[in-house]
Structures are given as structure tokens and as C-alpha cells.
């Protein structure tokens, strides 16, 4: 017997009307430009001066050309977003964080190819997927050093709303950063480009020779896969090698070596 139909119908109904990319990122059939709300990420018509989703004022937002595309190279070469200053003035949690039902939406992860993609990493080099697209200007700034255990760790993106970073790797170095902070804010060691990930979402550290993940009271939770399902991390949990971690509803990473 399927479990999801009745309940998921309701769930989709809750989400579908206001949170799917079709309504927020109009197709090319509509004329004109859109601008993206800095507070909640919703797309609005260029003629609007306030966000139709969260009523935030259109402050510092620029009209986004319809045909703008983002390439993997853009992500890899990302620098601090121009709207960082404006973004830092917004409330701690964007409204998308508060509107979410507990279960993920039954649909494709959103892809919104525009400036919302914050850099996947700030302090660690990101390695392109195994079939990288050309990005000649991208050179890792340093080679990750060995960790205290003499092991080089990586987080591999298993899933992300930013499809182009799926399969990419982020080196994490516990010698350089004894506490690896993870979140949407650019100041984190590992920056997750996902609206449903909190600004300061979680952190990884080594305690007594074990790698520990600690949830920082994130809005949508941190989860660890137990072989059957993603189990919520209430405070902290040990992360064994090859464990899968889920941040919020749409980002999954795997802890690997090499």
C-alpha cells in the first residue's frame, strides 16, 4: 500500500501554490525582466517595487535578464556576491525557512540559474565533478593538508538544488579549521547554496578521534543516514566515513576520503 498519496497530495497542495519554480521563475513566454527578493528568494515582476511573496522592499535588487545563464565555471569562480551587504541586513532566517512543511516537496529540486548561487565553498577548494566543464581560470589555491589523523577528508555533494555542483567535492581540513562551519552564509567554511539551509546550519569537528556533526538549531534540521532513513540529529552525532548527511530538505553530502 502506498503511503504518500493522500498525505503527499496535501503536502504538494501546501507547497505547490507558492513555492515551485514555475510560478517564481516565469518562463520565456512572459515578457520583461524579473528581480529576485533578497529576503525570501521569490521572483517578482520588474514593475513591482515590493516582493509579492514576503512584501520585502525591492532594495538593491537589480533586474535580472531572462536569459541569464550560469555555468559551472561561474560557480567555481564565484566571488562574494554583490548583494552580500544587503543580504546581511535581512532577518536571520529568510522567510522560505519558516514556510516549509516538515517533509520535502515531492518534486524536482528547484533550479534557478541566477545569482542566488552562493559559492559552494569559501575557504576550501572545490573539485569539479568527474566530467568537469572547462574552467581554465579556476585553480585550487592550495593543496589540502593532512588532518590530525593523517587523512584527507572531503564532502561530496550527492544532491543540491544547484544541480551543477552535484558530484563536486569540497576538501575539509581540520588542521586549518578545527571546526568546519556549514551554512548558507558566505562566512562559513563550507557554504551551501540552498535557500532551505540555515545561515549557520551545522558544524563538523574532531572530538576524541571521531568526527562529530553538531546541528546549530537550524530551521530545517540536520540528518544522518542510518542505512534506512535520514535520522534527525538532535544535538550532535558521530559521522563515520562514507556517512550521508542531509542539511535541510534538499542538500545531501557524503563524507569521504580522497
Amino acid at each position: 500500500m502506498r503511503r504518500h498519496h493522500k498525505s503527499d497530495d496535501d503536502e504538494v497542495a501546501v507547497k505547490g501554490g507558492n513555492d515551485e519554480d514555475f510560478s517564481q521563475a516565469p518562463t520565456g513566454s512572459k515578457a520583461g525582466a524579473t528581480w529576485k527578493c533578497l529576503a525570501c528568494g521569490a521572483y517578482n515582476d520588474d514593475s513591482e517595487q515590493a516582493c509579492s511573496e514576503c512584501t520585502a522592499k525591492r532594495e538593491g535588487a537589480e533586474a535580472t535578464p531572462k536569459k541569464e545563464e550560469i555555468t559551472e565555471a561561474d560557480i567555481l569562480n564565484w566571488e562574494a556576491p554583490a548583494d552580500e551587504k544587503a543580504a546581511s541586513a535581512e532577518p536571520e532566517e529568510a522567510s522560505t525557512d519558516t514556510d516549509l512543511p516538515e517533509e520535502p516537496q515531492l518534486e524536482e529540486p528547484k533550479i534557478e540559474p541566477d545569482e542566488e548561487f552562493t559559492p559552494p565553498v569559501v575557504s576550501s577548494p572545490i573539485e569539479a565533478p568527474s566530467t568537469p566543464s572547462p574552467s581554465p581560470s579556476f585553480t585550487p589555491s592550495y593543496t589540502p593538508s593532512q588532518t590530525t589523523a593523517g587523512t584527507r577528508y572531503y564532502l561530496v555533494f550527492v544532491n543540491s538544488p544547484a544541480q551543477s555542483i552535484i558530484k563536486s567535492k569540497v576538501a575539509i581540513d581540520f588542521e586549518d579549521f578545527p571546526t568546519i562551519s556549514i551554512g548558507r552564509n558566505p562566512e562559513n567554511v563550507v557554504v551551501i547554496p540552498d535557500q532551505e539551509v540555515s545561515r549557520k546550519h551545522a558544524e563538523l569537528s574532531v572530538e576524541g578521534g571521531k568526527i562529530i556533526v553538531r546541528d546549530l538549531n537550524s530551521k530545517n534540521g540536520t540528518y544522518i543516514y542510518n542505512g534506512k532513513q535520514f535520522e534527525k540529529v538532535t544535538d550532535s552525532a558521530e559521522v563515520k566515513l562514507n556517512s550521508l548527511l542531509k542539511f535541510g530538505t534538499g542538500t545531501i553530502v557524503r563524507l569521504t576520503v580522497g
Partner: protein
Amino acid sequence: MIDALDVPDILGEAIVKLGKPLLQSREEGTVVFVGDTHTAIDVTQTVFDRYYKEADLIVFLGDYVDRGETGVENVGIIVSKFLEDSRKVIMLRGNHESPLTNPYYGFLEEVTKKLGDQGYQSFKEFFQAMPYSVVVNNYMCVHGGIASGLEHVSQIAALPTPDVNPDDPMAFELLWNDPREMIEGFVPSVRGEGAYYFGGDVTERFLQNNSLKGIIRGHEVVDGFRKDMDGKVITVFSSRYHKESAGVLIMEGEKMVEEKI
């Protein structure tokens, strides 16, 4: 340009020719694979204009509707060609050929606007009669991917029909699962309950057990194409709404050509 009002009639005509959940395997010379079009009628029309005459077979991998305003016409164009030569066009079912998504992603509204309150009924009946999979030149074609519990392709032939959502867990997974080469087994997907990522190990095993070369599927937004597991799993995405390339995969014998339109 096809008239939306004509589409229900041709659906009725085509439904009896759609075939079973698993179509008979095919060996063909030149085969064109088209991923999710999601109402992109210009892509669909270009595929027929450019390849229909020369190709031996065109396989559409599902998701013709939702996320745009010309889903009725998009289905209509493909079904018209299917009626013209049903050996030359295969129309697989996607997860968006379903009342699980149509009320929330635009198609129900579109159909109702164009064809009235009863307009959706003929699409619902057509969608639930669509095949899930076909093996072409030893590649399994399916919208999402392999399902947990699917050991042999032939199991798909035994799936219940009609299945409107579908409700069968295996049928659901065929339409909703995604490949992830860096994991093992089947891991719950962020898409929601009942959907999974399938790992590199289970994919290899499945391909070996079925003497298949690979899997060709759609379902995930990519810039035209994505190859996983050393090219054994190929994702084709052929839409416009994601603002990246619409990919069309052309197989000519051993050669695979990726074209973007």
C-alpha cells in the same frame, strides 16, 4: 500548429496503440532520445522537423506537460506523429504525466482553460495507459531510473495497469528515482517519500544481470546532458524553462551524438 481542441480526439485514437508497461525491445539503426520537454513545443517540433525523416525511432522519455502553458499542444504534436507511424515514435510516461503533479505545476489549469472542466479526463486516461520503459539497442529507456526490487527488466511488464498516479511502488520509482554514482544501494531522495537515489553498485549489477549497456533517462534538470557511471547512465533534458540547453541524444550504432537545440 495543432489546435488544442483536437487533442482529446487524437488521444482517444492513440490510447489503444500505446502498448504495455514494458514495450517490446527494439534494435534500430538511428535512434533519437528526447528528455523532458515540459511544454517546450518548439523543441518537440524541431525534433520532428530535423530527425523524423532520417531516424528509425524517436524515444520521448516523459514529462511533456507542466511548467509551461502549451502542454496540451506538446502532447498533441507527439501523438499526431505517433499516429502517423507508431513504430517510429515511442512516448514513455514521466512523473508529470500524473494527477500527483498536474494540479500543482500548471497542466490542470491549462487544460481546464483550453478544454473546459472535463478536459483533463482524456489526458488522465491517456497518461495511465502510457508505457514506463523500453529497451532500445540494449539501453533501458525510462523516465527516472531503476527501482528497488527491480532485478530484471521483465518485471516491468507485470506492473498493474491502469495505475493513475501511479500507486505501485516500483512503477512510482521508475518515474521518480535519480542516479547517484557516489552512493550504494537505494537511498531516500529529497523528492519525497517513495522516491530514491540509486547507487553505482546496484546500477552495475542491474545492467550486468540484464545484459544491458546502459540507461537513458530524463527527470533531472541538466544543461542538455549528464553522464554518470562512466557514461552508462545518460540523463537527457530537453526543456526550455530551466534556461539551459535542450539536449537531444542521437544514437547511430555505437556512436552517440549529443545535440543541443
